[in-house]
């Protein structure tokens, strides 16, 4: 069996470092903050109920300590949402799409269009209220290999979906 093992020349290969990043819509921050605010209200209420019903916990110093811990966590969480949104961005190239995310744990995921099986646009109640949509690109690699880009303008999301579907069909015909 003939086996060649030539060295890799990376000259001329386009780099994903030199792309124009497009940030997500500012409305996404409101969607995230309002969405989490509901959960934080529930967490505060459950904590208060636990302190009220369990004998011995209904003390002012314990109450203050629990409130301080929860308030700090809540503040840090909303701060981290704001920070992470500053880094969230996407970029579309001729043959692939790149998505950048994370504040503490940063990542850049790239999906070539010829590996996309299909794509969907979605919006929750808050997303519809604040005019933001999410687009999900499905691959054969399952959930971990897919990419979900949140915080897109509704028109951009629809145009992008249509463009990607056309691209998939074109690639299919070329095959």
């Amino acid at each position, binding site marked *: 069996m003939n086996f060649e093992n030539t060295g890799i020349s990376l000259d001329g290969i386009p780099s994903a470092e030199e792309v124009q990043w497009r940030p997500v819509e500012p409305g996404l921050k409101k969607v995230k903050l309002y969405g989490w605010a509901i959960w934080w209200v529930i967490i505060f209420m459950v904590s208060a109920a636990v302190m009220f019903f369990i004998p011995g916990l209904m003390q002012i110093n314990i109450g203050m300590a629990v409130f301080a811990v929860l308030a700090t966590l809540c503040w840090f969480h909303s701060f981290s949402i704001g920070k992470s949104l500053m880094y969230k961005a996407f970029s579309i190239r001729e043959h692939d799409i790149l998505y950048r995310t994370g504040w503490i744990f940063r990542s850049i995921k790239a999906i070539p269009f*010829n590996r996309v099986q299909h794509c969907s646009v979605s919006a929750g109640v808050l997303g519809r209220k604040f005019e933001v949509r999410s687009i999900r690109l499905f691959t054969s690699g399952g959930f971990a290999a897919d990419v979900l880009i949140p915080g897109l303008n509704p028109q951009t999301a629809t145009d992008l979906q249509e463009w990607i579907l056309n691209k998939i069909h074109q690639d299919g015909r070329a095959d």
Partner: protein
Amino acid sequence: MEEQIDFSKPQRQPIQAIVQALLKSFASALKSIWPFALAYIFNLKSQDNPRKNTVWLILMLGLSAFIVGYTLIEFFYLRFMIRDKELVIKKGFFIKRELVIPFEKIQAIHLDRDWLQRLLGIAKVSIDTPGTTHTEERFFLTNSMAKALRDAILNQPISHTVSESAEEAHLPVINLSGKDLFKLGISANFLKAMLVLLGFAIARADDLSGITGKTSWDWVEWIEEKTAGGTVLLIASGITIILVVSILISFGLVILKYGNFSMLQTTKGFHIRSGLINVREKLVPFKKVQFISWEANWIRRHIPYYLFHFHIIGDHEISDKWRIAVPVTRPAFFPLLFQHYHPELPKGTPFLTMSGAYVGRNILYAAVFSIAAILISWLLGWEQALWLGVIFPLWVIRSIIHRKNFKAAISTEAIQINHSIFSKSHSLLRWDKVVSVLVKQNIFQRHRRLATLVLFTGGGKVELPYIQLSDANRLRDYALYKVED
């Protein structure tokens, strides 16, 4: 003997398959209600509350009747047919569902036959489809019908003739001799079997605590009490018995799994058949193989025996139980397994290693975890909590060995990851099989300009942790170039 089956007309499951369907329903129901059934039997003996017993009996009989009724209705309402290169499955009485699977989306068709199915002359047909909307459809057919359906989907003529001699065209690739099977059985990881056995015993002891009045921890204390006055010989005998039982169990499991193993080659793929009692068959189409891997446990790596895996589309979404590994008992088997994918990268191929920062991070994690474990155990009143300090050196040694043995060999067409700690693993991925690429960094990696590169395929992922950020970016760009070119 030839049988003509017209799949363009709706077909249903054979009547003998109803035995299998009912048994499966009962087995899953019994898994949920067996502690209650035991409680009922114990209550029956005590005769202290006959009215309560009657309620329990009615509930159990009612549940059984419901299961039988539901299974029968669902069984008779399942139909399937082939229509314009699509497999159409209609099922359900209460909730009607029509599933249309285009042939090109079908990744694999598995035919499995356990002892009961062989007795009934039927086979379980499983259809794999890819992606997050992954659906694995399962139904039962007669052996001839199952083979006809498989061939009809793979060869595509709707009216298909089944010939019993069709498999004669298949070329044998691997067959295991009795000696191979024995060596494979004896080299199984018996420590894993021992842990599984202990885990099972603890879970069942806790399940039965309502009846026996003793939890798993109470049983441990009971054994401690009984062995406190025992001699060293008694304790050594106990340990030897546990080891022998674990070895016998793991040996038996391997024989059951790989007995009658055969691997045949057709023009489209490998046809793997394995199992002494529960026979599993898998067709591995050459084109659907995403990446390949082979591994040896801490015993087999010295023989050397390997288990070889073909990772096909959708493979990562099925449980280990349904995966079939190919036992490689002779080095001569390797070229046969590589030939339709990519040869193993030779020694001397340029390679990447993990950064030394990987060990540094693990020292930090191990220290934090060990101190937390000692503190928590001490606060809970365990006097020998300091023993948990042994976690620290073990963790650090493991990370040093892992870093030392990790190598990612890179060629223009493929990447091969070799790593070992106690066991030895190799993964080989062709660049053109990548579906998406991820470069990720935590704070620790960002400060040192390191990154972890993840290459996703339709059959799972291959990861290169703690490599230089510049290398990760260059490999990502190269992977995208190879996929898009």
